[in-house]
């Protein structure tokens, strides 16, 4: 992309910044950039102000580590209709949204902000265990659900957490490994199938 060098510096800088975002390559960055320019100065200013507020007004909740508006109560922890006996541990704040989308879970959350991966520099100290311990110390939580993904890091993190939590809570559960809904057995890999079998539940 030699032509980029012909762009004005502000434009080039914006292209560079956009490409640091996940899933944005040079082409997408250009598309976003020109779209903003076409819409006029107002569009970029509005976006810039929104982003500025994101950086300044959004913080981690000290109790669940999900994101919340600075100075306001956490929409999750502050909701009295939620079941304080259930605590679901997830890798990221995006996972909270996914689980909320199912409508199946009305308990509380703990967001790890990563999975154990010493190679990537993610160690137990980064998982907010002191926050978790404080919440469990309150004595209300009866069941912790380990909802990390069924990957090497997800499994390792779940087992590390299970060791850490043993004896501090009545029940520790792991989300089930299952078959994708609507899938024919012929198209399922053997690992998923074997995990679905070992994780079977009583039907009758």
């Amino acid at each position, binding site marked *: 992309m030699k032509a980029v060098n012909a762009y004005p510096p502000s434009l080039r800088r914006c292209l560079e910044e956009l490409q640091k975002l996940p899933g944005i390559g040079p082409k997408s960055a250009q598309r976003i950039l020109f779209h903003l320019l076409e819409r006029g100065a107002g569009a970029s200013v509005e976006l810039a102000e929104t982003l500025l507020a994101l950086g300044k007004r959004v913080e981690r909740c000290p109790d669940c580590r999900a994101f919340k508006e600075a100075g306001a109560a956490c929409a999750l922890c502050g909701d009295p209709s939620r079941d304080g006996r259930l605590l679901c541990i997830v890798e990221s704040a995006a996972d909270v949204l996914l689980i909320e989308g199912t409508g199946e879970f009305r308990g509380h959350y703990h967001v790890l902000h990563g999975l154990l991966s010493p*190679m990537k520099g993610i160690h137990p100290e980064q998982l907010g265990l002191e926050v978790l311990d404080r919440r469990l110390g309150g004595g209300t939580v009866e069941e912790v659900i380990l909802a990390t993904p*069924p*990957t*090497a890091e997800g499994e390792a993190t779940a*087992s590390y957490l299970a060791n850490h939590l043993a004896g501090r809570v009545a029940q520790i559960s792991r989300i089930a490994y299952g078959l*994708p809904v609507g899938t024919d057995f012929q198209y399922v890999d053997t690992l998923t199938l074997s995990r679905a079998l070992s994780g079977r539940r009583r039907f009758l």
Partner: protein
Amino acid sequence: MPALSSEAFVLLRHPLTESSWIVTLFTREEGVVRAVAKGARRTTSPFRGALEPLSRVRVEVVLKEGRELGTLRSAELLEGSLDLHGRWPEAAVLMGMGETLERALPAHAAEEESYRLLGAVLAGLRAGAPPLLAWVYFSAWLLRLHGVFPRPEGCVTCGAQGYPLLLDLGAGEWRCPRCQRQRPAEGRALTGPMASLLEAVFRSPLASLARREFPQEALSALSGMVYWALAAYLGRPLATWPALESLGGAAGP
């Protein structure tokens, strides 16, 4: 296009794009091979579930002349590793072995014995070998296979049979304290109990050691010595060391 077809262990995987991984494979036929696994991060990928670290797979990799990075054509899972990742601290041993092999093995050079060692350690862990013993077994054997941690058979200079013996890491030789003039730091001496543990490691499969009791103090000291030698061999400490410390071995360098 020539394709490498081999059994392999997945050592590591890094995201390349939103949908693809770069996987580091320890193939039986050609040693370490790196390849792009296109689309592997999608839930519909045929590679899905087969590329978790320390899984044993059968792979086909297309390698182009003069290019370091190949393209993964197929990967069939032979033995998964999620059972062991789901057991802490066994998972820490798997992470440590993945990093060590990725750093210790040269690319495109088969190492049949190191390949078998990895399989044996995974089997040993499944048979219930204590994780610290498994880690010591792996690192002592890997260093021995690479010529830097020989089986101790007395002082190589004067032939004295007693202990302690000191490891001359540069030469890969054991010497008695009288012959080894450069004194290594505290704790780098092989005592009698450590030597009999090391002898068991070099003589028996890990799975068969799973049922034997070893003095914890000797195991811990030996782990410290082996890790010191490993870090020196690799040129710097392991990133996974903080996780391995939870196994209860002696402090690293």
